[in-house]
């Protein structure tokens, strides 16, 4: 419809066409319609209070339809308030909404949807659906817990903060950290970023990549958002941002606001600390923990070394006591033994002397008795000999006397006188006794001696006889 083709054709004025379109549209869409679309850009003008959202419909991220809309200031306040009350988000870029609108065409301003009402529960459902999808996808990819599994540094000393320098949240965070009364020294490096709305996803993502490039310089990342109230948080349910946080090589701490409904970023972050102050305290707490370990170590060293000293000293006093007791025991035992030996010695010597004395006494006693006995025996023997001598001598004398008397007796008998007395006589011839008749002759005178007196005898006859007669 350019100017050059105006000769052969019916030429409409722009207004005519525009009015025609307006009528056609009014005819085609006589009443309000419930439409769902995504707010590409809210285009809220606070001064006028009017809002001119750009609405789109995307498929696989590609814009398939787009239209302008307007919410007049009279309605916007009410709608926005209601929306916010239900979804926890203000109307903002990127939201999917279900709205009641009149399709209108304005000659001057073109096609526009005049939004008169928005159904917040739809957006809520959409947001929830999107959030769920993000969670499921992250889980499916196995990265949901990844950041939580990052080793947390003993001391999160070097903090990369993603925040807005001028925000209350950031200043709260820095304030808590820097004015900690324990003197912990942190080093904070701010990586400024948008923290709300659609822009936050890209902005935060960018800064995360920047931090990752300088990873060695930092211990931990803190995403700090503050002052913005509860609104504008659904960017944190965004898949790409959530994933970026989830797979981030350093632990990420979030302090992005009070939300009854945790965002995915908060879920996957290493630690979700709601407020910047809490995040700061969390970090300080790590210092405390470290400090406690140190303090415990010092105390333990103190205690253990004191214990060692006490025990060793105790050992010394035990040793001292041991030596005291033991040597005393040993010495007194020896002393007892010595005294015992002394006593035994005395007793044994006395015994030996006593024994010797007894032996001597026995010998003395023997000496006292035996010689006397010997002498007595000798006396007895001597007396016996004397007696024997007397007896023997007398015996001898008696024997001799007896023998003599016996001889004398015999002699008496043989005396001639005694023979004659018994009648025998002796006849002599020539003074010789006659014993043989044969020597005699008759007539001889013989002299015969009798016991008393004698006679003269004449031989008358001789009888010769043999001797044997």
């Amino acid at each position: 419809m350019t100017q050059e083709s105006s000769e052969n054709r019916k030429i409409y004025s722009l207004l005519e066409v525009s009015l025609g379109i307006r009528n056609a549209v009014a005819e085609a869409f006589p009443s309000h319609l419930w439409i769902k679309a995504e707010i590409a850009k809210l285009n809220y003008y606070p001064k006028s209070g009017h809002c001119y959202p750009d609405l789109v419909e995307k498929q696989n991220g590609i814009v398939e339809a787009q239209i302008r809309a307007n919410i007049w200031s009279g309605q916007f306040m009410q709608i926005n308030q209601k929306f916010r009350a239900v979804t926890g988000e203000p109307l903002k870029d990127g939201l999917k909404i279900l709205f009641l609108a009149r399709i209108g065409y304005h000659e001057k301003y073109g096609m526009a949807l005049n939004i008169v009402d928005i159904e917040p529960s739809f957006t809520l459902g959409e947001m929830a659906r999107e959030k769920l999808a993000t969670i499921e996808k992250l889980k499916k990819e196995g990265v949901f817990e990844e950041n939580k599994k990052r080793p947390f540094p003993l001391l999160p000393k070097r903090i990369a903060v993603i925040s807005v320098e001028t925000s209350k949240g950031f200043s709260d965070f820095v304030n808590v950290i820097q004015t900690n009364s324990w003197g912990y020294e942190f080093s904070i490096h701010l990586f400024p970023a948008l923290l709300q709305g659609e822009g936050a996803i890209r902005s935060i993502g960018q800064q995360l990549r920047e931090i990752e490039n300088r990873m060695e310089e930092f211990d931990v990342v803190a995403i700090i958002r503050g002052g913005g109230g509860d609104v504008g948080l659904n960017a944190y349910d965004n898949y790409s941002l959530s994933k970026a946080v989830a797979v981030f090589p350093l632990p990420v701490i979030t302090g992005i606001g009070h939300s009854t409904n945790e965002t995915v970023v908060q879920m996957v972050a290493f630690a979700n600390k709601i407020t910047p102050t809490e995040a700061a305290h969390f970090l300080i707490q790590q210092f405390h923990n470290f400090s406690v370990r140190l303090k415990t170590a010092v105390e333990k060293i103190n205690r253990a070394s004191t214990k060692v000293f006490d025990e060793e000293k105790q050992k010394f006093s035990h040793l001292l006591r041991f030596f005291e007791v033991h040597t005393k025991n040993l010495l007194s035992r020896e002393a007892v033994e010595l005294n015992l030996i002394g006593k035994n010695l005395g007793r044994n010597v006395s015994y030996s002397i006593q024994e010797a004395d007894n032996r001597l006494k026995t010998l003395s006693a023997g000496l006292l008795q035996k010689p006397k006995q010997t002498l007595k025996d000798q006396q007895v023997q001597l007396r016996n000999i004397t007696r024997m001598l007397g007896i023997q001598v007398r015996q001898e004398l008696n024997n001799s006397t007896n023998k003599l008397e016996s001889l004398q007796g015999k002699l008496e008998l043989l005396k001639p006188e005694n023979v004659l007395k018994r009648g025998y006589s002796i006849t002599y011839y020539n003074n010789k006794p006659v014993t043989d008749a044969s020597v005699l002759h008759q007539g001889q005178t013989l002299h015969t001696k009798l016991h008393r007196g004698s006679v003269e005898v004449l031989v008358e006859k001789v009888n010769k006889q043999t001797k044997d007669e």
Partner: protein
Amino acid sequence: MNKISYKEAMEKLEEIVSGLESDEIPVDELAAKVKEASRLIRICKSVLYETEEEVNKVLKEMQEEKPLEE
């Protein structure tokens, strides 16, 4: 490098402490061990209380004195 240093320092410190607690450290070595512990504690404290540059200085000094790795 810093991270490793103070972490190692803490581990060594706690090793020494548990050695002390289990009476494994002879009296002869006690002073040396406690000194070593003190050195390690200083490293750890420096991380707590000093600025990054100061910490690096302390660690550098310490490592020049005696390396942590034994």
